[in-house]
């Protein structure tokens, strides 16, 4: 029993050589896909491997990556969070609204309600024992309703002053990379440390692997579940605030369908939807795959519809690869 606490690899299912091989194949799979896409991209247009374009890709990835970070925690714990798209939009609008009283107020006004929505999700799932899919579907609607209510039914778009600190968090660069990219890197590093090296991280894997077993082991199952949804609410809100700062306005129409993109990125990255297994590096690769696809399609003047077909095919391809490798490892 204590082995699980000290060795997360048991819970994450990479204990035997064979399974480790399958895990590698899974992660390699997405790396291979990413490498192929980069190759296609650099062949199909010259400007792909320029500093400017790579900077662009990095900043465009950062917002989805931050959302997908929280989603990875939720999915590893065996849940799902459909509300992130709405919370992302809500966070952006709240930040743009609160910035009139200063950057700190703007950030707090964004993070506190978004965190509260995450906490509400977590409480309903952990203590109410309600299905995560439905709970977060309800908060998807509720958060979108809240968003419309505070923007005169979506008619008001609030601009963010260019000289405010919060706006510069979205727009400034440091060592050539946008601040959101640095924030993403810091958050992912912190996330990896938390998942791999802390008791909380190990609980997340254990709860996702088997809720009953985790309960029997005396792990704080309900608290762990609550915290992962809180994290997801906070990351979605923060990403929304940064995206709003990047475009210097709190737009109400963003974020629709973002939950699906985040889930797809997490799944492509090798995190199992059934929980108990997954990596943040994989998620980052999944996000990059999506952004590179976007980049290829926009540079070649292909419309979003063909782009969406390609995304659908990539999701199926990645999951097929995952399922087949996992199954081979089992038999």
């Amino acid at each position, binding site marked *: 029993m204590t082995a699980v606490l000290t060795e997360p690899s048991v819970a994450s299912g990479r204990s035997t050589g064979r399974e480790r091989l399958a895990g590698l194949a899974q992660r390699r799979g997405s790396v291979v896909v990413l490498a192929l896409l980069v190759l296609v991209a650099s062949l199909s247009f010259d400007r792909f491997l320029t500093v400017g374009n790579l900077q662009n890709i990095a900043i465009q990835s950062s917002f989805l990556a931050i959302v997908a970070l929280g989603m990875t925690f939720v999915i590893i714990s065996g849940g799902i969070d459909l509300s992130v798209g709405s919370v992302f939009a809500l966070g952006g609008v709240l930040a743009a609204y609160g910035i009139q009283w200063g950057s700190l107020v703007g950030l707090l006004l964004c993070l506190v309600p978004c965190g509260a929505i995450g906490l509400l999700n977590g409480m309903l799932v952990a203590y109410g024992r309600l299905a995560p899919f*439905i709970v977060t*579907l309800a908060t998807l609607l509720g958060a979108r309703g809240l968003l419309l209510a505070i923007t005169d039914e979506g008619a008001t778009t609030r601009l963010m002053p260019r000289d405010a600190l919060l706006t510069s968090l979205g727009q400034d660069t440091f060592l050539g990379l946008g601040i959101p990219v640095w924030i993403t890197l810091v958050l992912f590093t912190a996330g990896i440390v938390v998942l791999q090296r802390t008791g909380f991280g190990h609980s997340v894997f254990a709860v996702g692997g088997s809720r009953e077993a985790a309960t029997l082991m005396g792990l704080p199952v309900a608290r762990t579940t609550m915290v992962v949804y809180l994290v997801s609410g906070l990351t979605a809100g923060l990403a929304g605030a940064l995206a709003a700062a990047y475009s210097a306005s709190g737009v109400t129409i963003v974020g629709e369908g973002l939950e699906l993109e985040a*889930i*797809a990125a997490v799944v492509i990255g090798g995190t199992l939807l059934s929980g108990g297994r997954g990596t943040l590096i994989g998620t980052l690769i999944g996000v990059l795959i999506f952004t590179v696809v976007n980049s290829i399609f926009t540079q070649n003047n292909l419309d979003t519809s063909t782009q969406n*077909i390609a995304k659908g095919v990539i999701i199926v391809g990645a999951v097929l690869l995952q399922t087949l490798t996992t199954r081979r490892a089992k038999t």
Partner: protein
Amino acid sequence: MTAVAAQPRVWLRDNGVYAALVLLMAYDLVFTENFATVSNLNTQLVQVAPVLIVALGMALVIGTEGVDLSVGSVMAIAAAILPLYLGYGLLPAIGLALVAGALCGMVNGTLVAVVGIQPIVATLALLVGGRGLALVLADGQLKDIRNPALLDLGAGKAFGVPYVVLIAVLLTVLVFLLVRYTTFGRQLVATGGNRSASELAGLPVRRVLMTTYVISGVLAAVAGVVATARLTASDPSSVGNLYELAAITAVVVGGTPLSGGRVRVLGTVAGALLMQLITATLIKHDLPDSTAQIVQAAIIVVAVYLQRSRTAS
């Protein structure tokens, strides 16, 4: 939990949606102007019809412990196919749209039943890709429908009841009979209740799953045709948008548990009607869309909370 304490809750779980619907209708009759008119009732029913048709298929899929996120995109594909083949006549065009829906269902069914991918992810791929496909088929354009037969299907009435509503009623009856009185219906419920036990009992689990997703795809295509006929235009970029969520909501509010093993067709109808009436009532009382969404969110949570007692006891 004692039997006595459990009873009101069980009653609410099983009949809450009907009670809520009756209460809301009573409220509307008394307090809402122009509610109890034939034209208003027809408007409400016509508006709810496409959601209901999609929700019928969704109820079956959820009964197998699955979910079908692709329905909105399948509607868009059906809508995009219609104007391409209307030149050959109405029936061939509708037929091809339904075949496309069936094919989409087969893709979902194969991924879920044969490959063993979780339904959320399998159908998510078609949700993302399907609308793209629809837009490519339609060249990204909205096309006006001029075929008189199709326009009549969208606007015409028989005995004062719109065709659209009649189609929804007919499909509801068919799905109800399918679940209640056929072998397939029992196999579906058994598969959703306990898949491995069903496999051990020798039920054709894969075929049941496949058929269920095909039915869901075809019903979504029907909804796409109906929505297009009503709109008098094929608009693949917006038709069916977020219908997956509306359908899931109707099914869950109607008392079908997400954990599978139970399909409540009439509850689904009541769920769809309830959500439609709430929005209509709030709009008629000049409350904004945002309030409607927040109220709907609260209703979903209450509905799922009531269902919880089923698993807890």
